[in-house]
Protein backbone atom coordinates (compact mmCIF):
# COMPACT_ATOMS: atom_id res chain seq x y z
CA UNK A 1 0.00 0.00 0.00
CA UNK A 2 1.33 3.42 -0.87
CA UNK A 3 0.13 6.65 0.65
CA UNK A 4 -0.84 9.27 -1.89
CA UNK A 5 1.46 12.17 -2.64
CA UNK A 6 -1.15 14.61 -1.34
CA UNK A 7 -1.14 12.79 2.02
CA UNK A 8 2.56 13.50 2.42
CA UNK A 9 2.39 17.18 1.60
CA UNK A 10 -0.61 17.45 3.90
CA UNK A 11 1.36 15.73 6.63
CA UNK A 12 4.23 18.19 6.12
CA UNK A 13 1.79 21.09 6.43
CA UNK A 14 0.46 19.64 9.67
CA UNK A 15 3.90 19.24 11.27
CA UNK A 16 5.00 22.68 10.14
CA UNK A 17 1.86 24.29 11.51
CA UNK A 18 2.11 22.49 14.82
CA UNK A 19 5.80 23.40 15.10
CA UNK A 20 5.06 27.07 14.46
CA UNK A 21 2.43 27.17 17.18
CA UNK A 22 4.62 25.23 19.62
CA UNK A 23 7.58 27.57 19.04
CA UNK A 24 5.30 30.55 19.48
CA UNK A 25 3.66 29.20 22.63
CA UNK A 26 7.07 28.56 24.17
CA UNK A 27 8.45 31.83 22.89
CA UNK A 28 11.38 30.17 21.11
CA UNK A 29 13.13 32.51 18.67
CA UNK A 30 16.07 30.84 17.01
CA UNK A 31 15.86 27.05 17.22
CA UNK A 32 18.35 24.53 15.82
CA UNK A 33 16.81 21.80 13.69
CA UNK A 34 18.40 18.34 13.76
CA UNK A 35 17.33 15.49 11.48
CA UNK A 36 17.98 11.85 12.34
CA UNK A 37 19.58 9.80 9.54
CA UNK A 38 18.31 8.83 7.07
CA UNK A 39 14.56 9.47 6.74
CA UNK A 40 14.54 12.11 9.47
CA UNK A 41 17.08 14.15 7.51
CA UNK A 42 14.84 14.13 4.42
CA UNK A 43 11.89 15.33 6.50
CA UNK A 44 14.03 17.92 8.27
CA UNK A 45 15.33 19.31 4.96
CA UNK A 46 11.80 20.17 3.92
CA UNK A 47 10.68 21.46 7.34
CA UNK A 48 13.83 23.57 7.57
CA UNK A 49 12.72 25.35 4.40
CA UNK A 50 9.04 25.54 5.32
CA UNK A 51 9.82 27.16 8.67
CA UNK A 52 12.65 29.35 7.30
CA UNK A 53 15.02 28.39 10.10
CA UNK A 54 18.17 30.53 10.26
CA UNK A 55 20.64 28.08 11.71
CA UNK A 56 22.02 25.50 9.28
CA UNK A 57 20.34 22.09 9.34
CA UNK A 58 22.20 19.58 11.51
CA UNK A 59 22.13 15.80 11.22
CA UNK A 60 22.52 12.99 13.68
CA UNK A 61 23.38 9.33 13.06
CA UNK A 62 22.39 7.37 16.10
CA UNK A 63 23.95 4.04 15.06
CA UNK A 64 26.60 4.22 17.77
CA UNK A 65 23.94 4.89 20.41
CA UNK A 66 21.42 2.20 19.56
CA UNK A 67 20.41 -0.15 22.36
CA UNK A 68 20.31 -3.10 19.97
CA UNK A 69 23.88 -2.91 18.67
CA UNK A 70 24.70 -6.19 20.36
CA UNK A 71 21.73 -7.82 18.66
CA UNK A 72 21.78 -6.48 15.13
CA UNK A 73 25.34 -5.24 14.82
CA UNK A 74 26.53 -2.17 13.07
CA UNK A 75 25.34 -0.76 9.81
CA UNK A 76 28.46 -0.21 7.68
CA UNK A 77 26.73 2.72 6.01
CA UNK A 78 26.74 4.89 9.12
CA UNK A 79 26.85 8.55 8.16
CA UNK A 80 28.81 10.98 10.26
CA UNK A 81 26.78 13.19 12.54
CA UNK A 82 27.07 16.84 11.63
CA UNK A 83 26.52 19.24 14.50
CA UNK A 84 28.95 22.07 13.81
CA UNK A 85 27.39 24.53 16.26
CA UNK A 86 27.22 24.43 20.03
CA UNK A 87 23.88 23.22 21.31
CA UNK A 88 24.48 24.42 24.88
CA UNK A 89 21.45 26.41 26.08
CA UNK A 90 19.86 26.28 22.63
CA UNK A 91 16.36 25.11 21.74
CA UNK A 92 16.42 22.00 19.56
CA UNK A 93 13.83 20.65 17.13
CA UNK A 94 14.57 16.95 16.71
CA UNK A 95 13.08 15.51 13.52
CA UNK A 96 12.45 11.90 12.50
CA UNK A 97 10.34 10.26 9.83
CA UNK A 98 8.45 7.62 11.82
CA UNK A 99 7.95 7.45 15.59
CA UNK A 100 7.33 3.84 16.61
CA UNK A 101 8.88 2.27 19.74
CA UNK A 102 10.65 5.47 20.82
CA UNK A 103 14.05 3.80 21.02
CA UNK A 104 15.57 5.85 18.20
CA UNK A 105 14.57 9.06 19.97
CA UNK A 106 16.03 7.86 23.25
CA UNK A 107 19.31 7.08 21.44
CA UNK A 108 19.23 10.47 19.69
CA UNK A 109 18.74 12.30 22.99
CA UNK A 110 21.60 10.35 24.56
CA UNK A 111 23.84 11.36 21.67
CA UNK A 112 22.72 15.01 21.84
CA UNK A 113 23.67 15.22 25.49
CA UNK A 114 27.19 14.11 24.57
CA UNK A 115 27.37 17.25 22.43
CA UNK A 116 26.11 19.62 25.11
CA UNK A 117 23.20 20.66 27.30
CA UNK A 118 20.32 22.01 25.23
CA UNK A 119 17.76 24.39 26.76
CA UNK A 120 14.91 22.23 25.41
CA UNK A 121 14.11 19.58 22.81
CA UNK A 122 10.94 19.51 20.72
CA UNK A 123 10.17 16.30 18.86
CA UNK A 124 8.65 16.52 15.37
CA UNK A 125 7.77 13.45 13.30
CA UNK A 126 6.13 13.02 9.94
CA UNK A 127 4.32 9.84 10.99
CA UNK A 128 3.39 8.59 14.42
CA UNK A 129 2.35 4.97 14.69
CA UNK A 130 1.24 2.86 17.64
CA UNK A 131 3.65 0.51 19.44
CA UNK A 132 5.54 2.75 21.86
CA UNK A 133 7.89 0.90 24.21
CA UNK A 134 9.24 3.97 25.99
CA UNK A 135 7.50 7.04 27.48
CA UNK A 136 8.35 9.33 24.54
CA UNK A 137 5.70 11.48 22.85
CA UNK A 138 5.99 13.85 19.88
CA UNK A 139 5.22 17.58 20.02
CA UNK A 140 4.37 17.88 16.33
CA UNK A 141 2.96 15.09 14.16
CA UNK A 142 2.03 15.03 10.47
CA UNK A 143 0.07 11.81 10.32
CA UNK A 144 -1.23 9.35 12.93
CA UNK A 145 -1.49 5.79 11.81
CA UNK A 146 -2.52 2.46 13.37
CA UNK A 147 -0.92 -0.67 11.99
CA UNK A 148 -1.44 -4.38 12.54
CA UNK A 149 1.34 -6.28 14.23
CA UNK A 150 3.85 -7.27 11.60
CA UNK A 151 3.15 -4.22 9.47
CA UNK A 152 5.79 -1.59 8.97
CA UNK A 153 5.60 1.92 7.58
CA UNK A 154 8.67 3.29 5.84
CA UNK A 155 9.55 6.60 4.27
CA UNK A 156 11.32 6.26 0.94
CA UNK A 157 13.27 9.06 -0.68
CA UNK A 158 14.89 11.42 -1.03
CA UNK A 159 12.95 12.49 -4.14
CA UNK A 160 10.11 11.93 -4.28
CA UNK A 161 9.28 11.13 -0.68
CA UNK A 162 6.82 8.27 -0.46
CA UNK A 163 5.34 6.31 2.41
CA UNK A 164 4.85 2.59 2.03
CA UNK A 165 3.39 -0.02 4.34
CA UNK A 166 4.84 -3.50 4.19
CA UNK A 167 4.25 -6.76 6.01
CA UNK A 168 7.35 -8.29 7.56
Amino acid at each position, binding site marked *: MNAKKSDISQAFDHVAQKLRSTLEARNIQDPIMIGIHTGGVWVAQQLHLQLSINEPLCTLDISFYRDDFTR*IGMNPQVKPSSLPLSIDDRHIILVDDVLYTGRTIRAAMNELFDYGRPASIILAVLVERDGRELPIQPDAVGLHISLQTGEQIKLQGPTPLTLSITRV
Partner: protein
Amino acid sequence: MKKKNRLQLDDNGKLKHFLTIEGLNRQMLIDILDTAESFTSITEQNIKKVPLLRGKTIVNLFFEASTRTRTTFELAAKRLSADVLNINIQASATAKGETLLDMLRNLEAMHCDMFVVRHADSGAAHFIAQHAAPHISVINAGDGQHAHPTQAMLDMFTIRREKGEFHRLNVAIVGDIRHSRVARSQIHALSMLGVEDIRIIAPKTLVPTEPDAFGVHVYHDLRKGLRDVDVVIMLRLQKERMSGGSLPSEHEYFQLYGLTEEKLALAKSDVTVMHPGPINRGVEIDSEVADGPRSVILQQVSHGIAVRMAVMSMAMQSHLTNTSGGAR
Protein backbone atom coordinates in the same frame (compact mmCIF):
# COMPACT_ATOMS: atom_id res chain seq x y z
CA MET B 1 46.24 -18.04 3.45
CA LYS B 2 42.82 -19.61 2.95
CA LYS B 3 43.00 -20.72 6.53
CA LYS B 4 43.79 -17.21 7.69
CA ASN B 5 40.83 -15.95 5.73
CA ARG B 6 38.55 -18.45 7.44
CA LEU B 7 39.92 -17.50 10.81
CA GLN B 8 39.43 -13.77 10.31
CA LEU B 9 35.82 -13.97 9.14
CA ASP B 10 32.83 -15.56 10.82
CA ASP B 11 30.25 -17.78 9.11
CA ASN B 12 28.40 -14.72 7.81
CA GLY B 13 31.54 -13.27 6.26
CA LYS B 14 31.84 -10.59 8.95
CA LEU B 15 35.12 -9.58 10.50
CA LYS B 16 35.81 -11.57 13.68
CA HIS B 17 39.57 -11.19 14.07
CA PHE B 18 41.73 -8.61 12.33
CA LEU B 19 45.09 -10.27 11.78
CA THR B 20 46.26 -9.34 8.30
CA ILE B 21 45.04 -7.53 5.19
CA GLU B 22 45.53 -10.72 3.16
CA GLY B 23 42.30 -12.58 2.55
CA LEU B 24 40.05 -9.55 3.06
CA ASN B 25 38.23 -8.31 0.00
CA ARG B 26 38.00 -4.76 -1.25
CA GLN B 27 34.50 -4.24 0.15
CA MET B 28 35.65 -5.20 3.65
CA LEU B 29 38.49 -2.67 3.47
CA ILE B 30 36.07 0.00 2.25
CA ASP B 31 33.63 -0.84 5.06
CA ILE B 32 36.45 -0.31 7.55
CA LEU B 33 37.33 3.06 5.99
CA ASP B 34 33.66 4.16 5.88
CA THR B 35 33.03 3.13 9.47
CA ALA B 36 36.18 4.97 10.55
CA GLU B 37 34.97 8.04 8.69
CA SER B 38 31.78 8.06 10.73
CA PHE B 39 33.74 7.85 13.97
CA THR B 40 35.65 11.05 13.16
CA SER B 41 32.62 13.18 14.10
CA ILE B 42 32.96 12.02 17.71
CA THR B 43 35.86 14.41 18.23
CA GLU B 44 33.33 17.25 17.77
CA GLN B 45 31.38 16.05 20.79
CA ASN B 46 31.94 17.57 24.23
CA ILE B 47 31.96 14.02 25.52
CA LYS B 48 34.20 12.14 23.12
CA LYS B 49 32.67 8.74 23.69
CA VAL B 50 29.98 6.51 22.23
CA PRO B 51 28.37 3.71 24.24
CA LEU B 52 28.96 1.01 21.60
CA LEU B 53 31.22 -1.33 23.61
CA ARG B 54 29.98 -0.46 27.09
CA GLY B 55 30.61 -3.34 29.46
CA LYS B 56 33.20 -5.00 27.19
CA THR B 57 36.75 -5.55 28.35
CA ILE B 58 39.61 -5.12 25.92
CA VAL B 59 43.11 -6.30 26.80
CA ASN B 60 46.15 -4.69 25.24
CA LEU B 61 48.62 -7.56 25.21
CA PHE B 62 51.93 -5.96 24.31
CA PHE B 63 54.88 -8.32 24.18
CA GLU B 64 56.90 -5.62 22.45
CA ALA B 65 57.27 -1.99 23.45
CA SER B 66 55.11 0.55 21.66
CA THR B 67 53.83 3.95 22.63
CA ARG B 68 51.81 5.28 19.71
CA THR B 69 50.07 2.06 18.76
CA ARG B 70 49.21 1.12 22.32
CA THR B 71 47.94 4.55 23.31
CA THR B 72 45.81 4.95 20.20
CA PHE B 73 44.33 1.47 20.71
CA GLU B 74 43.65 2.40 24.32
CA LEU B 75 42.04 5.71 23.38
CA ALA B 76 39.99 4.04 20.67
CA ALA B 77 38.69 1.45 23.13
CA LYS B 78 37.89 4.12 25.70
CA ARG B 79 36.03 6.23 23.14
CA LEU B 80 33.91 3.15 22.46
CA SER B 81 33.22 3.00 26.24
CA ALA B 82 35.03 -0.32 26.69
CA ASP B 83 37.15 -1.03 29.74
CA VAL B 84 40.83 -1.41 28.92
CA LEU B 85 43.51 -3.48 30.53
CA ASN B 86 47.12 -2.84 29.53
CA ILE B 87 49.42 -5.77 30.05
CA ASN B 88 53.10 -5.21 29.57
CA ILE B 89 54.40 -8.71 29.14
CA GLN B 90 58.09 -8.09 29.70
CA ALA B 91 57.13 -7.34 33.29
CA SER B 92 54.43 -9.96 33.76
CA ALA B 93 54.05 -13.60 34.68
CA THR B 94 55.38 -15.00 31.39
CA ALA B 95 58.65 -13.64 32.61
CA LYS B 96 58.11 -15.89 35.61
CA GLY B 97 57.68 -18.92 33.38
CA GLU B 98 53.92 -18.96 32.79
CA THR B 99 53.13 -20.15 29.27
CA LEU B 100 51.27 -17.96 26.80
CA LEU B 101 48.33 -20.36 26.73
CA ASP B 102 48.05 -20.37 30.51
CA MET B 103 47.99 -16.61 30.47
CA LEU B 104 45.24 -16.63 27.82
CA ARG B 105 43.14 -19.03 29.89
CA ASN B 106 43.52 -16.71 32.88
CA LEU B 107 42.43 -13.66 30.93
CA GLU B 108 39.47 -15.60 29.58
CA ALA B 109 38.53 -16.54 33.12
CA MET B 110 38.41 -12.81 33.87
CA HIS B 111 35.74 -12.48 31.14
CA CYS B 112 37.73 -10.39 28.70
CA ASP B 113 36.24 -9.90 25.22
CA MET B 114 39.08 -8.80 22.99
CA PHE B 115 42.85 -9.09 22.81
CA VAL B 116 44.95 -6.50 20.99
CA VAL B 117 48.26 -8.23 20.41
CA ARG B 118 51.71 -6.86 19.61
CA HIS B 119 54.50 -9.42 19.42
CA ALA B 120 58.01 -9.67 18.04
CA ASP B 121 57.27 -13.05 16.42
CA SER B 122 55.49 -13.29 13.08
CA GLY B 123 52.23 -15.18 13.46
CA ALA B 124 51.77 -14.52 17.18
CA ALA B 125 48.35 -12.84 16.85
CA HIS B 126 47.26 -15.65 14.54
CA PHE B 127 48.32 -18.23 17.09
CA ILE B 128 46.39 -16.47 19.85
CA ALA B 129 43.28 -16.18 17.65
CA GLN B 130 43.45 -19.91 16.98
CA HIS B 131 43.66 -20.80 20.65
CA ALA B 132 41.44 -18.17 22.26
CA ALA B 133 37.90 -19.02 23.36
CA PRO B 134 35.30 -18.58 20.60
CA HIS B 135 33.77 -15.41 22.06
CA ILE B 136 37.07 -13.55 21.93
CA SER B 137 38.21 -11.33 19.08
CA VAL B 138 41.88 -10.77 18.36
CA ILE B 139 43.34 -7.68 16.71
CA ASN B 140 46.89 -7.76 15.41
CA ALA B 141 48.78 -4.65 16.51
CA GLY B 142 51.97 -5.79 14.75
CA ASP B 143 53.58 -9.24 14.62
CA GLY B 144 57.25 -9.63 13.83
CA GLN B 145 57.98 -8.88 10.19
CA HIS B 146 54.58 -10.16 9.09
CA ALA B 147 51.76 -7.61 9.36
CA HIS B 148 50.52 -4.43 10.97
CA PRO B 149 47.05 -4.20 9.47
CA THR B 150 45.58 -1.32 11.51
CA GLN B 151 48.59 0.83 10.61
CA ALA B 152 48.03 0.00 6.93
CA MET B 153 44.33 0.86 7.20
CA LEU B 154 44.96 4.20 8.89
CA ASP B 155 47.40 4.96 6.09
CA MET B 156 44.73 4.04 3.50
CA PHE B 157 42.29 6.26 5.39
CA THR B 158 44.77 9.13 5.25
CA ILE B 159 45.42 8.61 1.53
CA ARG B 160 41.68 8.53 0.78
CA ARG B 161 41.15 11.75 2.73
CA GLU B 162 44.02 13.47 0.91
CA LYS B 163 43.49 12.11 -2.59
CA GLY B 164 39.89 10.96 -2.75
CA GLU B 165 40.45 7.86 -4.86
CA PHE B 166 42.98 5.08 -5.07
CA HIS B 167 42.96 4.47 -8.81
CA ARG B 168 45.61 6.23 -10.84
CA LEU B 169 47.72 6.99 -7.78
CA ASN B 170 51.47 6.49 -7.70
CA VAL B 171 52.48 5.52 -4.20
CA ALA B 172 56.10 5.07 -3.16
CA ILE B 173 57.24 3.34 0.01
CA VAL B 174 60.81 4.20 0.97
CA GLY B 175 63.12 2.46 3.39
CA ASP B 176 63.58 -0.93 4.96
CA ILE B 177 60.85 -2.79 3.08
CA ARG B 178 62.33 -6.21 3.72
CA HIS B 179 61.95 -6.18 7.48
CA SER B 180 58.84 -3.99 7.63
CA ARG B 181 55.47 -5.42 8.64
CA VAL B 182 54.03 -1.98 7.96
CA ALA B 183 55.20 -2.01 4.33
CA ARG B 184 53.92 -5.55 3.81
CA SER B 185 50.43 -4.65 5.02
CA GLN B 186 50.45 -1.37 3.12
CA ILE B 187 51.32 -3.09 -0.15
CA HIS B 188 48.49 -5.61 0.27
CA ALA B 189 46.00 -2.87 1.11
CA LEU B 190 47.11 -0.54 -1.68
CA SER B 191 46.86 -3.24 -4.30
CA MET B 192 43.49 -4.51 -3.02
CA LEU B 193 42.16 -0.94 -3.15
CA GLY B 194 43.27 -0.61 -6.76
CA VAL B 195 46.42 1.53 -6.68
CA GLU B 196 48.01 1.05 -10.08
CA ASP B 197 51.61 2.01 -9.43
CA ILE B 198 53.13 0.88 -6.15
CA ARG B 199 56.85 1.57 -5.89
CA ILE B 200 59.31 0.44 -3.31
CA ILE B 201 62.50 2.41 -2.99
CA ALA B 202 65.32 0.89 -0.97
CA PRO B 203 68.95 -0.18 -1.05
CA LYS B 204 69.41 -3.69 -2.47
CA THR B 205 69.93 -5.14 1.01
CA LEU B 206 66.53 -3.89 2.23
CA VAL B 207 64.33 -5.01 -0.66
CA PRO B 208 62.17 -8.12 -0.07
CA THR B 209 63.70 -11.28 -1.48
CA GLU B 210 60.70 -11.84 -3.76
CA PRO B 211 59.48 -8.35 -4.77
CA ASP B 212 57.64 -9.71 -7.82
CA ALA B 213 55.25 -11.57 -5.55
CA PHE B 214 53.97 -8.20 -4.32
CA GLY B 215 53.41 -6.72 -7.78
CA VAL B 216 55.49 -3.66 -7.04
CA HIS B 217 58.08 -1.69 -8.96
CA VAL B 218 61.49 -1.67 -7.34
CA TYR B 219 63.81 1.34 -7.36
CA HIS B 220 67.22 1.67 -5.77
CA ASP B 221 67.56 5.34 -6.63
CA LEU B 222 65.34 7.64 -4.56
CA ARG B 223 65.40 10.42 -7.15
CA LYS B 224 64.21 8.11 -9.92
CA GLY B 225 61.60 6.49 -7.73
CA LEU B 226 60.08 9.76 -6.54
CA ARG B 227 59.38 11.08 -10.01
CA ASP B 228 55.69 12.02 -10.30
CA VAL B 229 54.52 10.17 -7.18
CA ASP B 230 51.29 11.28 -5.48
CA VAL B 231 52.10 9.79 -2.10
CA VAL B 232 55.43 8.97 -0.49
CA ILE B 233 55.50 6.82 2.62
CA MET B 234 58.76 6.93 4.55
CA LEU B 235 59.59 4.03 6.83
CA ARG B 236 61.53 4.31 10.04
CA LEU B 237 65.08 3.09 9.72
CA GLN B 238 65.51 0.59 12.50
CA LYS B 239 68.86 1.41 13.93
CA GLU B 240 69.42 -2.19 14.98
CA ARG B 241 69.77 -3.03 11.27
CA MET B 242 72.77 -0.79 11.12
CA SER B 243 74.87 -3.17 13.19
CA GLY B 244 73.80 -6.15 11.07
CA GLY B 245 75.88 -4.84 8.20
CA SER B 246 72.99 -4.39 5.76
CA LEU B 247 73.45 -0.63 5.86
CA PRO B 248 76.17 1.97 5.66
CA SER B 249 76.26 4.77 8.25
CA GLU B 250 73.23 6.91 9.15
CA HIS B 251 74.87 9.82 7.45
CA GLU B 252 75.33 7.92 4.21
CA TYR B 253 71.79 6.56 4.37
CA PHE B 254 70.44 10.08 4.71
CA GLN B 255 72.48 11.19 1.71
CA LEU B 256 71.03 8.42 -0.45
CA TYR B 257 67.56 7.70 0.95
CA GLY B 258 66.71 10.58 3.30
CA LEU B 259 63.75 12.66 2.12
CA THR B 260 64.66 16.31 1.68
CA GLU B 261 62.72 19.21 0.12
CA GLU B 262 65.10 19.11 -2.83
CA LYS B 263 64.34 15.44 -3.59
CA LEU B 264 60.65 15.88 -2.86
CA ALA B 265 60.49 18.48 -5.62
CA LEU B 266 60.74 15.59 -8.11
CA ALA B 267 57.34 14.26 -7.00
CA LYS B 268 54.00 15.77 -8.00
CA SER B 269 53.50 19.28 -6.66
CA ASP B 270 50.63 18.15 -4.41
CA VAL B 271 52.50 15.11 -3.10
CA THR B 272 51.50 13.81 0.34
CA VAL B 273 54.29 12.76 2.73
CA MET B 274 53.51 10.05 5.27
CA HIS B 275 55.41 8.21 7.99
CA PRO B 276 54.09 5.67 10.49
CA GLY B 277 56.31 7.10 13.23
CA PRO B 278 58.34 7.37 15.27
CA ILE B 279 60.44 9.47 12.92
CA ASN B 280 64.22 9.67 12.93
CA ARG B 281 64.88 13.26 11.96
CA GLY B 282 67.93 13.56 9.77
CA VAL B 283 68.07 9.82 9.08
CA GLU B 284 65.15 8.92 6.80
CA ILE B 285 63.46 12.31 6.75
CA ASP B 286 64.63 15.90 7.00
CA SER B 287 62.90 18.06 9.62
CA GLU B 288 61.97 20.56 6.94
CA VAL B 289 59.90 17.88 5.18
CA ALA B 290 58.50 16.26 8.34
CA ASP B 291 57.21 19.61 9.60
CA GLY B 292 56.40 20.97 6.14
CA PRO B 293 53.08 21.59 4.40
CA ARG B 294 53.06 18.27 2.51
CA SER B 295 53.44 16.19 5.65
CA VAL B 296 50.35 14.52 7.16
CA ILE B 297 52.29 12.59 9.81
CA LEU B 298 50.26 13.95 12.72
CA GLN B 299 46.94 13.51 10.89
CA GLN B 300 47.91 9.84 10.56
CA VAL B 301 48.03 9.61 14.34
CA SER B 302 44.53 11.11 14.71
CA HIS B 303 43.18 8.86 11.99
CA GLY B 304 44.66 5.88 13.83
CA ILE B 305 42.10 6.32 16.59
CA ALA B 306 39.09 6.38 14.23
CA VAL B 307 40.37 3.38 12.25
CA ARG B 308 41.02 1.36 15.39
CA MET B 309 37.56 2.22 16.70
CA ALA B 310 36.13 0.93 13.43
CA VAL B 311 38.06 -2.33 13.48
CA MET B 312 37.33 -3.01 17.15
CA SER B 313 33.60 -2.35 16.89
CA MET B 314 33.30 -4.39 13.69
CA ALA B 315 35.15 -7.35 15.15
CA MET B 316 33.20 -7.17 18.39
CA GLN B 317 29.82 -7.29 16.72
CA SER B 318 30.49 -10.54 14.90
CA HIS B 319 30.31 -12.79 17.94
CA LEU B 320 27.16 -11.06 19.16
CA THR B 321 25.11 -12.39 16.30
CA ASN B 322 21.52 -12.69 17.23
CA THR B 323 19.52 -11.62 14.25
CA SER B 324 16.34 -10.51 16.01
CA GLY B 325 15.42 -7.22 14.42
CA GLY B 326 15.93 -3.76 15.76
CA ALA B 327 13.05 -1.39 16.29
CA ARG B 328 12.70 2.28 15.55
